[in-house]
């Protein structure tokens, strides 16, 4: 099994919508919405939260993500009533943007990693947010999208889309670095699934890697690039696994992320 997610919102539609969105990228993860009051109004329901924890608890742990104010307090109250053993496998991450956090956490959970790793996944949704940013600020935190340049120009149709440019490691015993360009050939470009596959695989590698300037280990940031078919990925990495990381991305992209 994998870690389950409980999404608490004041609105039933928001909670359900967030689960729906996350499910697209994490088909096997238990995603439980707890939105609105018992009688279907706007607010939070202690009972929906309590039963939601039960549903989301696969035994591998539950991560709770919340929207505003009382959602956090309702969840904390519900946690007080759990048995210690169960409470120990439930975490709450109140300060991440709900949509981004849920998707990032679900993608992490899909790989079957531990609760701690799923929590880190959720926290990664804040990458690029100003330090100490509030909910409002985090929502407006834009990743540094590489401005114009070749990423926007449709690359010339070419048989071999890969143009690897191995960079020499900087000096003797220096940091390994590598980079490469590759054209996106799959019709839907770098959409949710390939972004998830890429980020997931890279997370396990010991390298800092960017695609068009954004952290390639973050699904959210990759998706916000909105890269389409025909555009070019500039992949750059530093660290022991730099070469492997760049090869993985360029290889996947050249292969159309298995979507051709």
């Amino acid at each position: 099994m994998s870690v389950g997610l409980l999404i608490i919102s004041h609105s039933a539609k928001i909670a359900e919508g967030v689960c729906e969105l996350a499910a697209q990228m994490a088909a096997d993860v238990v995603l439980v919405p707890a939105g609105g009051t018992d009688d279907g109004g706007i607010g939070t329901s202690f009972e929906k939260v309590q039963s939601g924890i039960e549903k989301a608890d696969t035994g591998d742990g539950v991560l709770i993500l919340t929207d505003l104010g009382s959602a956090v307090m309702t969840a904390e109250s519900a946690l007080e009533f759990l048995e210690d053993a169960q409470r120990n496998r439930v975490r709450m991450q109140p300060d991440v943007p709900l949509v981004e956090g849920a998707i990032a956490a679900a993608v992490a959970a899909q790989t079957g990693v531990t609760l701690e790793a799923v929590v880190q996944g959720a926290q990664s949704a804040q990458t690029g947010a100003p330090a100490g940013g509030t909910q409002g600020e985090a929502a407006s935190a834009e990743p540094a999208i590489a401005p114009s340049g070749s990423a926007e120009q449709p690359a010339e149709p070419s048989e071999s889309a890969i143009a690897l440019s191995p960079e020499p490691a900087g000096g003797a015993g220096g940091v390994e670095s590598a980079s490469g360009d590759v054209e996106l050939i799959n019709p839907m470009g770098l959409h949710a699934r390939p972004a998830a596959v890429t980020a997931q695989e890279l997370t396990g590698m010991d390298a800092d890697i960017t695609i068009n300037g954004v952290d390639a280990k973050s699904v959210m940031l990759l998706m916000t690039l909105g890269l389409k078919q025909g555009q070019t990925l500039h992949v750059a990495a530093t660290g022991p696994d730099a070469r492997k990381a760049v090869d993985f991305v360029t290889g996947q992209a050249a292969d159309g992320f298995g979507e051709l």
Partner: protein
Amino acid sequence: MADTLNAAWAEAWLRNSAAVVAEHRKELIDLDRAIGDADHGENLDRGFSAVVQKLDESNPETPGACFKLAAMTLMSKVGGAAGPLFGTAYLRAGTTVGESTELDSPLLAQALAAARDGIVARGKAEVGDKTMIDAWTPAVDAATEAAEAGAGPADVLEAAAVAAQQGAESTDPLVARKGRASYLAERSAGHRDPGAASSALLLRAAADAAAAAGNGAGEAGASGA
């Protein structure tokens, strides 16, 4: 005057609370409309009506049992921030009084302090943040002082109720730093915090129930809904 309060008082307090919340429903809604989402009166009315229904169905035999019944019911029925906040308050008060059947002044003051501490634990607000804590903290201070001075429980609660009302009024000029009203920043000044206003009503209900019990009006008088 009686020097202890019992389950009949606790039940009368909760029933009085339901009555005053129903009576001031619109006022609380209007306060919450100014700096929130206009649901505080509705939330509390729903919660306390459910408490009364639970009291009708069961017969809690100690003050602690009354508080726990209120805690669970408010947590599950209120639906806004006041649910977990007041729910936790009653829960901690219930834990503090334990199985005691009679509450004397010191224990009563301790229970109020525990209730306030529960609200702080849940909502992390401090005095001056323009929340219900601005009513609760002066109330707890006044109750503790009265209990230490040897006042009877009815007087302890009277002191708490007066201080809570003043505390609620003190929120008028404040800028909210917690809860929904904090989104309004400076624009929250010039309005009373709805949770502080309702807290003052609840503590007034506690004092009135104690005064009625002390006057020998008994359960019927104290429950005067």
